[in-house]
């Protein structure tokens, strides 16, 4: 999860729930729409959104890095071997390239890309604490909220822990710099203890949660992190829902 950058882009300022709604609406619309063109359009628009959020470079890297290999693989498998294939557009000798399979592959790829792209943007522009605060204020069970937050924090915390342990190891004669092999040799024996200590941490951390009223019932939780619903959020949410409904209607009409 991206930690709050100093300069906030309009995307970062959006309510996390709006972004979750966007994942849902855009992904579902792509899935429902009979062909791949809508999804392609959405992905192109999302490049613009990533630009607004100042994450264009890493966004492009993720989309292409994932998109190109998975497309090639799916086009290959579906295009050549899909049982749906009726219209043959090319004969490669060892197998025939079918149109139906290719279209089907394009649909899967584009749907995956839309989900990946929207999810990536949300992940990069939303601070974990803010997302959970938004979920909690919208009424989800605080215990569930805690679980989400704690799981989102596990990786950065393990990272920290590993850094600390690395320092402690070096101070006791372990070489952790140098080749990959040297580093692996240094780290592998540590994985057990890191996981162990994360578990004991988890047990101890329960104490403070309890003594600070974690299990309070009948109270609507509040959060220090401000979660606002701006005009932009309201319009965007309305727009997303209208868009989804429109896509559903159009899809039904197209299949008629």
């Amino acid at each position, binding site marked *: 999860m991206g*930690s709050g950058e100093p300069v906030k882009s309009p995307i970062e300022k959006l309510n996390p729930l709006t972004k979750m709604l966007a994942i849902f609406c855009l992904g579902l619309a792509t899935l429902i729409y009979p062909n791949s063109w809508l999804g392609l359009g959405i992905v192109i628009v999302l490049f613009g959104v990533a630009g607004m959020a100042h994450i264009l470079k890493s966004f492009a890297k993720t989309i292409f890095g994932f998109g190109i290999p998975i497309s090639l693989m799916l086009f290959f498998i579906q295009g050549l071997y899909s049982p749906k294939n009726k219209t043959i557009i090319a004969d490669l000798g060892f197998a025939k390239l079918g149109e139906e399979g290719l279209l089907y592959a394009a649909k899967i790829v584009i749907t995956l890309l839309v989900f990946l792209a929207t999810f990536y943007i949300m992940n990069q522009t939303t*601070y*974990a*604490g803010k997302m*959970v605060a938004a979920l909690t204020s919208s009424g989800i069970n*605080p215990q569930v909220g*805690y679980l989400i*937050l*704690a799981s989102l*924090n596990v990786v950065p*915390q393990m990272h*920290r822990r590993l850094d600390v342990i690395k320092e402690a190891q070096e101070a006791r004669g372990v070489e952790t710099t140098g080749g990959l092999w040297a580093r692996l040799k240094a780290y592998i024996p540590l994985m057990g203890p890191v996981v162990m200590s994360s578990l004991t*941490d988890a047990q*101890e*951390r*329960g*104490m*403070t*949660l*309890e*003594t*600070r*009223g*974690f*299990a*309070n*019932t009948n*109270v*609507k*939780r*509040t*959060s*220090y*992190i*401000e979660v606002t619903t701006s005009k932009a959020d309201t319009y965007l949410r309305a727009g997303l829902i209208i868009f989804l409904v429109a896509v559903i209607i159009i899809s039904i009409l197209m299949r008629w």
Partner: protein
Amino acid sequence: MDDLAIEVKDLSFRYRQTTHAALSHVSFSVPKGSFFCIIGGNGVGKSTLCNTFVGLIPHYFLGKMDGDVLVNGQSIIDQSIADLSSQIGLVFQNPFNQLSYTASTVAEELAYGLGNRGVAREEMVTKVEAVAKLMRIDQVFDQNPLDLSGGQAQRVAFGSTFILEPKILVLDECTTQLDPMGADEIFAIVKRLNNEGITVIMVDHDMERVAEYADQVLVLADGSPVLQGAPAEVFGDPRLADFGVEPPDYAAVTQALAKRQLIQDKLGVTKDQAAALVKEGLNHAD
């Protein structure tokens, strides 16, 4: 009884998978509004006792408990930790145990307990800022709590309990990593709260501090109470050394001076008392 904040009744406790009782047959009571200190060597059961006050024992730590502890007249057995948390707050010995691990900044960490009570955001922000200033952690307000120095972490730990305004404040060696003036400042705050009617229960190895603030001192040895009384009584008791405790330096020095008949034969356990005796002794000599 209404005038007791805590009443410990023949309490014994043994942690699961251990063979030795951490507490055995402990009985004492803490009147409301008092400043009560628990002292003793390492491992005698001070933290274990603190854990019972907030209900972590028997509700969180597994083990065998006998006897009872009443907080404001109600048994800890019948109350959940969350219920108790509205009356009593504990600052843990290890500040990193106090972190919620859900907060990415010091500010969020301080606010954590308030959120669980549903305190409105504006009020929360005001309180968090005030406490950060008071604890001198406003400079690291936006820093990740896991990157703090030891003393800064201890300030956050204290602040995150203090902000919940408990009626009974339990401090388990909460200033061991603070710079000396920082510790003085925290105790000035604690004393002010105590004057306002808050009951304070403090565990500490700093006997000068204990002598300065305590109304009552309880000495534990190997899980059992062995001495109890006002600081002057406890620190004047010749058996003290047997229990692994040294009296404050002020007591030792006034005793040494009195033995040489340089000052009046009275025990000064605090700096002010000792200073008065020393000054008087000097003037007397003139």
